[in-house]
């Protein structure tokens, strides 16, 4: 396509709008009014903000340690198998490590995506349903992961 070729006096739009019949203006998304936003008077966003930084610090250790063990040490990925996982989860230390990593990463990631939805989704309905999908997926993954860590049976056939 060629570059912009807008001529100010396009023949088609001359008669469409005039002083008494102006074109609609483009309103910004979710414009502030006298009545919105309503105040909620909770500390939710404060705790959410703090949680992102604190969980982030802990995740640096947990995630980097996890990646090191899984991908680098003892021959890298080739060693990973059912036996390797079973061996690690025999120790309560790695159970707690993985449980903590699961919960922190999921809540951290979910809250991060909540921020992204708040930043990008414009229509109230879109915001609501995207968040419902996010919360459902988060609860499902956290519960399933927790269940597996606690009920893992190394002798399963």
């Amino acid at each position, binding site marked *: 396509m060629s570059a912009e070729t807008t001529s100010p006096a396009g023949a088609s*739009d001359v008669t469409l709008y005039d002083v008494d019949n102006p*074109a609609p203006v483009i309103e*910004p998304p*979710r414009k*502030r009014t006298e009545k919105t936003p309503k105040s909620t008077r909770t500390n939710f*966003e*404060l705790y959410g*903000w703090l949680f992102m930084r604190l969980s982030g610090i802990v995740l640096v250790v947990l995630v980097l340690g996890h990646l090191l063990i899984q991908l680098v040490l003892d021959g890298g990925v080739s060693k990973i198998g059912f036996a390797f996982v079973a061996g690690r989860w025999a120790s309560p230390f790695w159970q707690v490590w993985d449980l903590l990593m699961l919960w922190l990463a999921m809540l951290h990631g979910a809250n991060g995506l909540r921020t992204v939805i708040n930043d990008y989704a414009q229509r109230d309905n879109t915001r609501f349903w995207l968040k419902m999908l996010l919360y459902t997926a988060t609860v499902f993954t956290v519960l399933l992961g927790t269940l597996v860590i606690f009920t893992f049976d190394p002798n399963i056939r």
Partner: protein
Amino acid sequence: MSTPTLDKHSAALDAAENTASHTIKVTFRIRRFNPEVSEEASWQDFELDIDPKERVLDALHKIKWDQDGTLTFRRSCAHGICGSDAMRINGKNRLACKTLIKDINPQKPITIEAIKGLTVLKDLVVDMEPFFQAYRDVMPFLITKGNEPTRERLQSPEDRERFDDTTKCILCAACTSSCPVFWNDGQYFGPAAIVNAHRFIFDSRDEGGEQRLEILNDKDGVWRCRTTFNCTDACPRGIEVTKAIQEVKRALITRRF
């Protein structure tokens, strides 16, 4: 250093005195919108012979007065005080009256458009009402309890220094309309409102700080700031806007813990 004398003209001084020959040709590419003509906004080029030491506002004046009287923009003081003429010049929010043409590469067309995130009403004029609503919502006035003193309210120079930076705001909206969070969600208070809350929160004479902190603690308050630093870059008064927002966050956290 020697004192300059009349008979010793430097080359620069000679050049400066020959103002007539000192203009260059500059193209101004302006985003036009007139709802009485079309629903579409479009770019229009204006060519101008102008001294590069002049400001973008001077160029807009020349265009409006000599070439196209329908060009619409706000300005009042023309000296960086009233905050009327914030606009997006070459993609950055600036005051037209504080931007010298020579500083923004006049070799290429200079683009000028309305600030983002607010309704464009005509050409460079936007509806500032949501911006001022956020300003009003942080209660930007002195709140005190008890009897009024008979003389002025005294304050030490150190206490005055604490919020000096944020007293400089001229409410031009360059910061708020440079914030990507505000672009997508007008419910966010935006940097300018927070700057003006900061100006009172950290004023030792004011007693409404708790209330203002509570307002900015809510879901569309300071926690929505993503430290992009666009606001600090945009502020024509050189206010450290992002820092002010972080100071409000810190005050909220130290208040709680």
